[in-house]
């Protein structure tokens, strides 16, 4: 199995080509991961105490469903389906950038409130991922953030975390 993981890794590096030959390795890897997850969950469930069918304890049901995952994951690892999969390419790395940006958005949202993170996120996604020009990007980000703030926080009363922009504004004297 190690070989298939290595292969997958190598593929990730040199995968400029969109057309990928059908490789069992790539089909096997996720199934193997599922198999491992299933087995790990079975162990976790066993430790919760399983009881019996007639007198089930907290672990029984998780044990049964983890077994289903491990079994099906195992079958799929041994007999992978030969279906063509999408190649990993350089833009896949862009997706990772997108994921990180959303994580940063959540952290900032919790600490400095909605407005600044929302503007930053919209700028990033519109400019970098969306390829918009600067002027529409800036206008859309500011107007979009302000509108969402008004809609959600003011109109619907969603309690956003303390917002430093609004705090600063009200301190200046509004």
């Amino acid at each position, binding site marked *: 199995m190690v070989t298939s993981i290595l292969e997958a890794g190598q593929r990730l590096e040199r995968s400029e080509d969109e057309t990928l030959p059908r490789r069992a390795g790539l089909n096997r890897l996720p199934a193997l991961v599922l198999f491992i997850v299933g087995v790990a969950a079975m162990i976790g469930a066993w430790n919760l105490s399983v009881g019996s069918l007639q007198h089930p304890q907290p672990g029984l049901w998780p044990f049964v469903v983890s077994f289903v995952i491990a079994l099906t994951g195992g079958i799929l690892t041994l007999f992978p389906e030969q279906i063509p999969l999408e190649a990993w390419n350089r833009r896949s790395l862009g997706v990772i950038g997108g994921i990180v940006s959303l994580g940063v958005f959540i*952290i900032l949202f*919790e*600490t*400095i409130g909605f407005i600044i993170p929302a503007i930053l996120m919209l700028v990033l996604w519109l400019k970098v991922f969306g390829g918009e020009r600067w002027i529409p990007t800036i206008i859309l980000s500011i107007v979009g953030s302000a509108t969402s703030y008004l809609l959600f926080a003011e109109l619907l009363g969603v*309690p956003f975390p*303390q917002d*430093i922009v609004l*705090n*600063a504004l*009200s*301190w200046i004297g509004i």
Partner: protein
Amino acid sequence: MRFNLKSTFFTSAAVILSVGVAVSLTGCGAAGTAEAVDAGYPAKTVKFLMPYAAGGPSDVTSRAMAQCLSQGLGGTFVVENQSSGAGAVAMQQLASAKPDGYTVGLSTNGPMVLNPMFNELPYSMDDFTAIGTMAKIPTMFAVGKDSPFKDAESLFQAAQENPGTISMGVPGATSSLAIELKKLQQDFDIEFAVVPTSGSAELITNLLGGHIDAVFINDHKDVAAHVKDGGFVPLAAASQERSKTYADLPTMEELGYEGFFTDSVYGLFGPKGLPDAIVATLESGIEACTQDQEVIDQIGERFVPDTFSNAEETAAVFADMQTRYEPLVG
């Protein structure tokens, strides 16, 4: 991790930027301390945390009280429902809030006393300051209309003679009713087949449908409707006093089950270290609200206690729950 980051960032942000909002009206510079108190309280929006989702009796209580407190004390009390983590998230937020009176919250037996016993949580009862009792929901034992059990004695006797065959539904595994029932079974050598459900609605469905033999349930308006209709036959009240609505219904203690009582108590709490002056302000605020006819109508006349339990008494009630339940939760 999240929380650390949040608190450090928040403190600095608060000091640098929000000083103006936070303290301009009280005239005190130290945003991080609890001394920002004087006659001006409440000078800004007070966050009223709710460990349950909107719509239930605790929500109705919170909203009625928040509105009344806003009118009575000035300021705005804003209810914020945070039901995630079975209420633990709201309780943790309340415990870690600044004790300046601008974060308060409703809590009851479950989130305050039982959840920290069942799960490893970063808070315990000692992290809160009790302010007063807003409402109390009594509990009762009931059976369906076709039940062979006509009174509580016959039900309990049957459970004693045929252990584990009579099913008794309770609202939830970690509810005070489930724990109290466990105590009853231990103390009096009774054994029901206890069936936890996900709340009153499911309990009512199962009793009306004849899927369970009896229920131990919060005696709220939904139950009262079925008692009135005849679908539910109440057997015993499980509060310390008889219910005003069912004056003929004996309490469990009257039936000889000494020390058996439980109510869902809706208390108002603040974080630990809440200054006395603020406690006093809020305490008198709630006391006035519990006598306000509009509030009483909204919450329900039966659920607002006639005599107000102040901060000290409320704290004692919850401390008593703690000592009662501790040996039962293993």
